[in-house]
């Protein structure tokens, strides 16, 4: 009886295709990942059920645990105009070189009277060491001036372009937030957004029920 010959097959698989896929995925993930927006100081934002995603190019007001206020002018197209405006309206008398330095700075967190000194420093100060923009009460509220310049630079445009965000720490006290709110109000800005971490609406609540209804 002749035995049927089973041809021996090699167990080597061509790995080229798999390798291609792996590196394709890898490059996709690397390119698709957005870098985290810069943070002046660590801030733990509160949770909310809101599902709106924060837009880019925001004017961000950061409120830390200690009540320090920082300003980030994230809208590149308006940043120069805002800084020029604050230089003239507050008569800061910054030279062209100092202005150039200020434009490069990401976070603004010093009172006006320290701004010149800060810009003259050889090495830029870390945001965490800055004292914050004074925003204590209605008489000492420099944030109002900053927001005025922000509002001025958006004048004549659709105010919806102004993407004003407030990012506050959980433990920040309410009066600090109230003062920020006041500085917006003084400039006739009544709409702003609060940065939060998203959270699932509690089951059984009105919002969760309406979300289910909408799906159906």
């Amino acid at each position, binding site marked *: 009886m002749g035995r049927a010959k089973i041809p021996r097959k090699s167990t080597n698989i061509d790995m080229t295709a798999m390798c291609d896929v792996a590196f394709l995925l890898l490059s996709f993930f690397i390119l698709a990942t957005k870098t985290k927006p810069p943070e002046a100081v660590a801030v733990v934002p509160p949770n909310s059920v*809101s599902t709106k*995603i924060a837009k880019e190019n925001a004017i961000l007001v950061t*409120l830390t645990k200690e009540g320090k206020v920082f300003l980030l002018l994230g809208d590149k197209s308006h940043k120069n105009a805002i800084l020029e405006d604050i230089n003239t309206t507050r008569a800061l008398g910054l030279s062209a070189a100092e202005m150039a330095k200020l434009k490069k700075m990401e976070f603004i967190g010093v009172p006006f009277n320290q701004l010149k000194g800060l810009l003259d420093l050889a090495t830029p100060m870390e945001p965490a060491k800055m004292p914050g923009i004074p925003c204590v009460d209605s008489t000492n509220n420099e944030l109002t001036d900053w927001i005025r310049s922000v509002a001025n630079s958006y004048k004549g445009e659709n105010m919806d372009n102004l993407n004003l965000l407030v*990012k506050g720490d959980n433990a920040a006290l*309410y009066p600090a937030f109230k003062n920020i709110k006041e500085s917006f109000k003084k400039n006739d800005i009544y*709409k702003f957004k609060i940065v939060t971490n998203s959270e699932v609406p509690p089951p059984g609540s009105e919002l969760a029920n309406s979300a289910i209804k909408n799906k159906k």
Partner: protein
Amino acid sequence: MAEIEKAKPANKNKKNAFVKRNTRVDLTPMVDLGFLLITFFVFTTTLSLPTVMSLNMPFDKVLPSDPICESCVLTILLEKDNVVKYYEGTPENNPAIKETTFDNNGIRNIIVQKRKAVQKLKGSADDFVMIIKPTDESNFQNFVDIIDEVAINNVKHYYTTEINDNLIRNKPAPGK
């Protein structure tokens, strides 16, 4: 492992025969490395993008004069250490001020019950009005949490005001 095997010269007689080499490289370790890196990147990237919550402040140069039914109002006071106090109706009538927390069975329950009561009374829960008064000792989280409760419970009208706000304190009771 890498199979770069010398293929035997086809013709031994020819000394200058062109030596064919198998150029196939074992790609298994490279694939391993690729997937390892993918897993690393997937795990290290934080997927949670920050979300935003809109907040519209009232244009309070003109005080609102909407008539509000007194029994539709729930006033919530945010106090120190995450304590929430609340009362129904206007402060002129000296309502009982009760205390609760931000727990799941805390203020949310109160809002839900009040909302239902208003629905029974007025036929629509849209008449329910929430007044939020954060004290100076409350923190930012308390404020965001209570605004969040507004969204969670689909409250149509709410006002925020400060307790020491003279304007509000001296305001005649709504509905007069």
